């Protein structure tokens, strides 16, 4: 449940500190879930990869914050128009994920109910969040959230080392690209495009 709540926090909030904190917590909790499916050493490596991605996001967030501090009116606009909606839909997705993992018709037979809830919750929250944002840093964290959900399931059905390594490399690549896009987006517009 904890790992899905971290995904909900990522969907609901915009502040980069909150996002990075939730991403780091999610990496630790997902690592604990991996330990039910994979040898502890590999689960540990997955956790470290997730934490390194969180560090990468933190450094990027700080750089963006220094380059272009957030304006107060941005915060007000977001909180008045979007926050209640995001809280409601995140709660609905959480309930649906819980329901799907508890129902014998839709639960995933290859994994335990706990992992099943995490898989449904992370993928659904990730997709929901991606539909609600076009900010690269948040988008990157949400992509990794959805991917973590998929990896939790895939680790149970295909635990090959090469695939695990490739998926970790893929997460790094996504994170790197998202951080780069976030930094580019935060630069003052030099193009002058109308």
């Amino acid at each position, binding site marked *: 449940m904890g790992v899905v709540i971290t995904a909900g926090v990522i969907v609901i909030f915009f502040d980069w500190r909150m996002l990075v904190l939730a991403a780091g917590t999610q990496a630790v909790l997902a690592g604990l879930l991996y330990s039910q499916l994979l040898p502890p050493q590999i689960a540990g490596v997955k956790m470290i990869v997730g934490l390194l991605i969180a560090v990468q996001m933190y450094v990027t967030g700080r750089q963006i914050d220094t380059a272009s501090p957030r304006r107060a009116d941005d915060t007000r606009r977001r909180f008045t128009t979007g926050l209640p909606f995001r809280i409601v839909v995140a709660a609905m997705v959480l309930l649906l994920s819980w329901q799907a993992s508890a129902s014998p018709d839709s639960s995933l037979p290859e994994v335990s109910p706990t992992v099943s809830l995490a898989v449904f919750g992370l993928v659904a929250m990730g997709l929901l969040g991606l539909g609600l944002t076009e900010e690269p840093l948040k*988008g990157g964290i949400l*992509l990794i959230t959805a991917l973590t959900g998929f990896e939790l399931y895939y680790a149970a059905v295909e635990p090959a080392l*090469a695939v695990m390594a490739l998926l970790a490399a893929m997460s790094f690549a*996504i994170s790197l*690209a998202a951080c*780069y*896009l976030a930094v580019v*987006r935060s630069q003052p517009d030099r*193009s002058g495009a109308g």
Partner: protein
Amino acid sequence: MIVPLLMLAAPAIMSLAAYLLRRWVWAQSLIAALTSATLGLLALQIPLDQIAVFAGRDVQFQSAWVVLGRSFTFAETDRPSLAFIYLASTFFFAGAGAAKPPRAFLPVGLITLSLLAATIFAQPFLFAALFLEMIAASAAFILSDDEHPATRGALRLLVFVTLAVPFILLAGWQLEGLATSPEDTSLLVRATILLNIGLLILLAVVPFHSWIPNVADDSAPYASAFVFTVVQTAVMFFMLKFFTQFDWLRANTAEFAALRLAGAAMVGVGGAFAFAQRKFGRLMGYAVMVDLGTALLAVSIVEADGLPTALSIVALRGIGLAVWGMGLGWIRSRSTHRNSDDFDHVSGLGWQMPFAAAAVIVGGLSLAAIPLTAGFTGRWALFRLLARNDLTLAFVLLIASVSVTLAYARGIAALLRPPAAEESDAPREGQATIVFVIAGIGAIILLGMFPQMLLPAVARAAEAFVK
């Protein structure tokens, strides 16, 4: 010598050299073009699993490289697809110095070459989806930069490719299950559904197409052209490999009907939206959608020469796109609103930058498949096939082609309006650009007039996929 390792490592190492030479774009361009041209020749000629004399010594060229229990294998049938990717990249890299590309274009382009080779070598080949994902991530570095800070297109490309990967991997898992329980047809059904969803997303079929016009609008034109040519071709080869490797997929007529529907949707939506565009970038995006759709339509025609037609469409798309991208980069730099390619903002620039304007016009018309341009060859062959198979689709394709052409005609009219009194102080196209533009336009017209120069190579490539 392990050939896959050589082909994966060489571009990565050369990308480091290109990065170190980032102040000298022509040196970068030379290194990148030489690397990809050499690899292209090696892809065609290198002996596999044979001993050959190399630098005075007997060397065995191994075709497989095993890593963590999986392998990268260079099969004989991979030669045409590899050679195409390397030679198309050579074309882009050679012209980069003259085209105002993003600073990271050549180093990242070389890294992309490594990843593209990995998509072809990966065994089981379903894992190529992971490398396609890494390509989408690396594309972000050339699709957005200080000059093009809009990130929407690059982010959407990343999101869509990431969403496709799980479907492809899960399809692979179902197929592994099928190997142990061949009597369980539900596995086959699930694998087919998952595979189709994954491929629809990767191929940017409607409604997963939104990244194409956004990338074309927001990013440097030359970088967009590279992504639309090389990366989308790799995706097309990835799809064709499924049909080559799985008899059950090839025997499924519903699969080809779905491909035809997907292609028709891309052609229809691309054509409909192209007509309404007033920016060269977005227009190019929708024209590319139409072209991607035509390639899918051609693949869907199984009983005739659909595959060679699809490959000729794919092969000839890049030439028009590269020339177009080279010209539009210069036109945007001199627009009244810098980096804008709105028709109103580039009005009259055809008189100030005649060569860049000519590149935009001829490259665009090739993409619209106007007769006597390179793009016409594949489109005409498809019209002939569709006329025998499905006249309605031929009509839809004709309307879409006319729609793109009319939209270009508006753009051309804007470029050729009488020039404004005041001129921008942005530099005009240099002599090198003029040389490359003339060469590119010459290639478009030459291939448009004498397409038979390319057809034997296309036929050989098609044979490799049929095998």
